């Protein structure tokens, strides 16, 4: 407690408070742009922190991280374009809520959920950081592989479009994930002589194409451009009603705890936490049929989970100096730029930074809420812009977002191709969310499988002998078999036509 108070004394100086607010504001502003998620925002804004003292710079950078996380979900809800992989799940119900005129409620739930989850995560971070970090280190390749398989199986049940169709999309995502340099051997593959493909296919242009460009083409195809009237939203509709609030409390709390725990695990934790939370909420909800059609739980749960996971990812970074996710890797580089080496010695050598950053996250989290709740109305006004003016601008932002990743035209090409493919898939009612998430998880899954097999000299029993991996596989098997058993039982008791796809 004394340490946290010391951290607060460092964070609550007018200068640090100002830069914390600026970080949260700028992060939200840039994160709101379609396609520019936390990684893009942090990379673009890193330069701003160069001239600041280390503590202030890191406090501002943490604010940028938080702000961009929230900003990413705003585009998912309003225009159905996820700025980052962890917002893909939010699109599924958030955008449906927006289309039903509940955009304000969805944004409000996302903001409050993110705040609660961030705060819960920070309490855990303050209390458990060193101990949890050691536990997280027990994860080896078999455990990573088990988690990836588990995640992909959950994915196949996410879209509500049928298991086989989702698994096909997962398969395509996995194929795309293998393009480029192999992480283990450094050899390139599936580049077909195109040098730009050597760095692999980034998920951002794929996501922007599959969601943004496909949406644009769909609008044009459906003749719904000029005829579409601007959505009029009343003030009271900006906030969730009693039912939505009541239905969101549980998902926020569960998402907070689940997200934090998943955040400790290496890999794309924020992504995994969102679909774990979504699956959990859908499986226990009384309103299962509403999922995918604008269920508030589908926004509140995953949004809380990804924010809590973002906090959880700070545990290994601050305690061990290991970044488990790309945004924390950027934070690590920001620390190194300012001459600070995170790790076990950070707490003893630079307590002002360790506790200052943690304390500033409490403040930044609060600032983000104060900053964003009044802006819900402003963001919702985006929906009042006629589609034939809004969509070309989104196309422009998508082009810039794709280009800015590597300052490369090839990413714009990937986005356009993904857009055309997304249009066809949308037209044929194939959900693209599993494809994107598989593209993110795929490389980790492949590497961990190969490393596990090398460790065991080809013995697949390694996945059973490791208790954590075995437990995860059992959970995955249960997840896969349980619905089938349930369906068979239901068909026997209440015989009727049943779908396979």
């Amino acid at each position, binding site marked *: 407690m004394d340490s946290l108070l010391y951290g607060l004394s460092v964070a609550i100086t007018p200068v640090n408070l100002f830069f914390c607010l600026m970080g949260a504001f700028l992060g939200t502003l840039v994160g709101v742009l379609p396609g520019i998620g936390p990684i893009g925002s942090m990379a673009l804004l890193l330069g701003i922190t160069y001239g600041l003292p280390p503590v202030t710079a890191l406090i501002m950078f943490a604010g940028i991280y938080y702000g961009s996380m929230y900003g990413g979900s705003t585009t998912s809800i309003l225009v159905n374009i996820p700025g980052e992989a962890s917002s893909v799940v939010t699109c599924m119900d958030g955008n449906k809520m927006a289309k039903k005129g509940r955009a304000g409620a969805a944004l409000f739930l996302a903001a409050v959920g993110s705040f609660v989850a961030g705060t819960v995560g920070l309490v855990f971070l303050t209390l458990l950081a060193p101990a949890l970090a050691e536990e997280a280190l027990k994860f080896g390749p078999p455990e990573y592989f088990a988690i990836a398989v588990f995640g992909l199986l959950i994915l196949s049940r996410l879209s509500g479009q049928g298991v086989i169709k989702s698994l096909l999309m997962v398969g395509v995502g996995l*194929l795309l994930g293998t393009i480029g340099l192999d992480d283990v051997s450094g050899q390139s593959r599936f580049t*077909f002589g195109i040098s730009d493909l050597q760095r692999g296919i980034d998920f951002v242009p794929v996501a922007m194409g599959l969601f943004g460009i496909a949406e644009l083409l769909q609008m044009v195809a459906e003749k719904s451009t000029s005829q579409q009237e601007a959505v009029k939203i009343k003030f009271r509709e900006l906030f969730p009603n009693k039912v939505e609030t009541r239905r969101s409390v549980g998902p926020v709390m569960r998402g907070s705890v689940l997200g934090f725990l998943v955040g400790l695990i290496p890999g794309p934790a924020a992504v995994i936490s969102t679909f774990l939370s979504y699956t959990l909420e859908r499986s226990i909800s009384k309103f299962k049929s509403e999922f995918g059609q604008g269920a508030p739980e589908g926004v509140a749960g995953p949004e809380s989970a990804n924010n809590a996971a973002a906090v959880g990812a700070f545990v290994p970074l601050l305690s061990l100096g290991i970044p488990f996710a790309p945004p924390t890797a950027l934070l690590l580089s920001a620390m190194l730029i300012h001459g600070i080496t995170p790790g076990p010695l950070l707490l003893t050598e630079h307590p002002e930074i360790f506790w200052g950053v943690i304390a500033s996250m409490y403040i930044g989290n609060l600032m983000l809420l104060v900053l964003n709740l009044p802006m819900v109305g402003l963001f919702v006004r985006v929906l009042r812009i006629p589609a034939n003016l809004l969509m070309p601008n989104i*196309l*422009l932002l998508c082009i810039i977002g794709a280009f800015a990743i590597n300052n490369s035209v090839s990413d714009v090409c990937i986005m356009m191709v993904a857009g055309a493919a997304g249009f066809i898939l949308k037209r044929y009612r194939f959900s693209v969310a599993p494809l994107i998430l598989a593209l993110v998880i795929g490389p980790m899954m492949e590497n961990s499988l190969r490393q596990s097999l090398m460790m065991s000299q080809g013995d697949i029993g390694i996945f059973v002998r490791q208790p954590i991996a075995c437990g995860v596989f059992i959970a995955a098997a249960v997840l896969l078999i349980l619905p089938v058993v349930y369906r068979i039982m239901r068909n026997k008791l209440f015989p009727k036509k*049943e*779908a396979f796809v």
Partner: protein
Amino acid sequence: MTKITNNSKVALGIGLLAIIYLQEALTLPFGSAGMPDIGFVPVLEAFVLLFGCLFLILLEQFFGDSVNGQIGDNTAENNDKVSADMNYKKTAVLTLALFIYLFLLKPVGFLPATIGLLFVCFRVMEYGKWYWSLGVSIIIVGIVNIIFTKWLGVFFPQGLLS
């Protein structure tokens, strides 16, 4: 003759992709179970994906009605109904514009190429008169160019303006 359903069409497309991918994957060193090389996982993935596509196609052919009954709007009749309401001419124009843009972006430069693309997009989406569309395109691309180039350090291709 049985009509090919949408699910089957997509499965065929993905299957074709998997075959091309597999062909390339088979040229890579496979290794062994104890020492998997860079072709190991891709070959497995491609086979599993091919199997999945085949399974879906067979399922659609033999259990088509029950499968599509659940999905509803994926039946052949519904496909025709949906197709009739679609404006494919405009979609084709916009798609073509997007791909032409890719070829022009580097040689012509970001500013002129993007203004052109936005103009086409506004016209396709029926946004006001042509001069309004052109004016709005120029203003928006100009502002965005200043923000990203001057403030955020993103350097777009200069093309003709270099």
